[in-house]
């Protein structure tokens, strides 16, 4: 059991740090370059082939490690050193609650493809994202710089405000699924909603079975998807919600006095946060690892005819993991599209948008979903 957990942890960390983080960093640069009609990273090359800048993240990582870490005069020594770790560690821990597969039974053992199958699943994401925000606030305070202090105040206000809107925006999904556990949400979404009544008077025959929608969160409550994604992006201080680190206004805000490894850790925290948000959105709204129209039972029963039950389960596991990664990457791409296509919100505009826009919308959505659930009878979508 312990060995299995160790293997899972190493696999997840490996995929994250070697695969997803560089990919996301590259997407962030290359895709925004394409969107803004720029060339993008073009210097790093292997024998003059730039590969679209694919090696740029590696070069960046080496540069961060090789450069000197400067501590400004008058900075708080302990907190200035501690802040990057405080920003990064909670974000890495969040990865543990994201399920990257479903639950499988091989023989008598049960395998759950998630590191920590937490009962309170999504709530850990909320708690840890606030803690990570604290790291940014402390970074800004400890730098002994006016720009950094301004960034810290903005980041603090943003962290608290986003938490409220973000938590409220996810409440309808708890009501629909009846669980907080992310792996259970995946199981509940691994089925289809028939279009039943709408098409019942047509004679569709076999096709009727396929004329259905997957019971994903985005299908059941699209408003919830939009509000949560935007609030989560705001909580992680990504553009266009990055007034706390606005380069053209306060010169980088809370991280302005960081260089070398410290800056690298902050940037890593930002990129991992992007991946984690994509993971949570996938688990809650995009069916987790479920493949549309092909539920787990269906895949296993179809394949086990040829290869036997155990091997069929393994194949299903692989298919699920690939489906999960595909969804994850597409949510990352979606986030980068949103980043690139909106101008930055001023900090007072951001507060307005969160408190007077997102929060009432989320509350309204809770009431509407509640009415529908009660009217339909007992919930369950």
């Amino acid at each position: 059991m312990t060995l299995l957990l160790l293997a899972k942890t190493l696999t997840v960390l490996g995929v994250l740090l070697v695969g997803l983080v560089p990919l996301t960093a590259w997407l962030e640069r290359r895709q925004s370059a394409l969107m803004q009609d720029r060339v993008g990273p073009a210097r790093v090359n292997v024998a003059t082939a730039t590969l679209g800048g694919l090696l740029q993240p590696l070069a960046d990582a080496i540069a961060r490690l090789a450069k000197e870490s400067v501590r400004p005069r008058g900075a708080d020594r302990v907190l200035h050193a501690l802040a990057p770790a405080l920003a990064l560690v909670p974000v890495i821990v969040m990865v543990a609650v994201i399920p990257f597969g479903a639950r499988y039974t091989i023989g008598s053992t049960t395998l759950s493809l998630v590191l920590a199958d937490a009962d309170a699943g999504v709530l850990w994401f909320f708690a840890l994202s606030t803690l990570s925000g604290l790291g940014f606030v402390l970074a800004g305070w400890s730098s002994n710089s006016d720009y950094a202090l301004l960034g810290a105040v903005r980041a603090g206000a943003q962290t608290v405000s986003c938490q409220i809107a973000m938590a409220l925006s996810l409440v309808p999904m708890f009501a629909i699924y009846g669980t907080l556990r992310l792996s259970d949400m995946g199981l509940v979404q691994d089925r289809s909603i028939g279009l039943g009544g709408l098409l019942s008077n047509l004679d569709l025959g076999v096709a009727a079975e396929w004329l259905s929608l997957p019971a994903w969160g985005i299908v059941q409550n699209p408003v919830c998807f939009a509000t949560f994604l935007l609030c989560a992006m705001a909580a992680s201080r990504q553009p266009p919600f990055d007034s706390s680190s606005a380069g053209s206004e306060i010169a980088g805000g809370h991280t302005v006095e960081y260089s070398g490894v410290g800056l690298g850790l902050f940037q890593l925290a930002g990129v991992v946060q992007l991946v984690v948000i994509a993971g949570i959105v996938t688990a809650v709204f995009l069916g987790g690892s479920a493949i549309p129209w092909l539920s787990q039972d269906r895949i296993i029963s179809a394949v086990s005819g040829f290869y036997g039950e155990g091997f069929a389960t393994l194949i299903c596991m692989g298919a699920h993991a690939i489906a999960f990664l595909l969804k994850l990457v597409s949510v990352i791409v979606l986030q980068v599209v949103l980043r690139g296509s909106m101008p930055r919100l001023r900090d007072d505009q951001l507060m307005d948008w969160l408190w007077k826009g997102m929060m009432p919308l989320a509350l309204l959505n809770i009431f509407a979903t509640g009415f529908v659930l009660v009217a339909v009878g007992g919930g369950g979508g």
Partner: protein
Amino acid sequence: MSAEVLLFDVLAALAVFSAAAMVIVARTAVAAATALLACLTAVSGILVLIGGELVGVVHLIVHGGAVTVLLLMIVLLVGAEGGRRPASRVRDTAFKLLGCGAAVGIALVVVHTAPGTGVPVSGVESGATIGPGAASAAATALHPAAALHPAAALHPAAALHPAAALHPAAALDTISGGHRAMGLALFRSHLLPLQVLSLLLLSAVVGSVALAGRRAD
């Protein structure tokens, strides 16, 4: 010594050390807030260990996260430091840290020699175990049904239905941290306190806006 007791000791030591550091060592308000953050995080860990995930994670969200950010923000906004003070001598800080260490030592001795009932709050010995181990065991027990019919076994309707107590999923939930049981307790048997609480929160919001929002002139 089981892993659970070891974890409890480590978290308790961290909580007591950072609490002592906050009171004794921290010179600036920001340093105190950082120590408070460490202490509250450790307390949340202990709550998860003994009381189930829900209370622990809610404590971490509200107090470890939001309240600490709020305290820090106020420190930054009103400039609570009154300028940076000169650094204290290294020897003083060393003695203070020694004091914190002594506090942790006393804490561990007191915690482990406390006389009393010996009623377990955790561990597999008790019937109503709360903890990650028990949760996964219960999940495994439930699993065969869940794997075959996820939607049926986990059907959310069970949560809203009065007969939830008879449903296997409800039984699982009582054992493993119990957000469903907590929800039923809050919204059924403790509905009046909850409503009064919401009024209190509303008046707190209005009151603090009225107090702090007023311009100084």
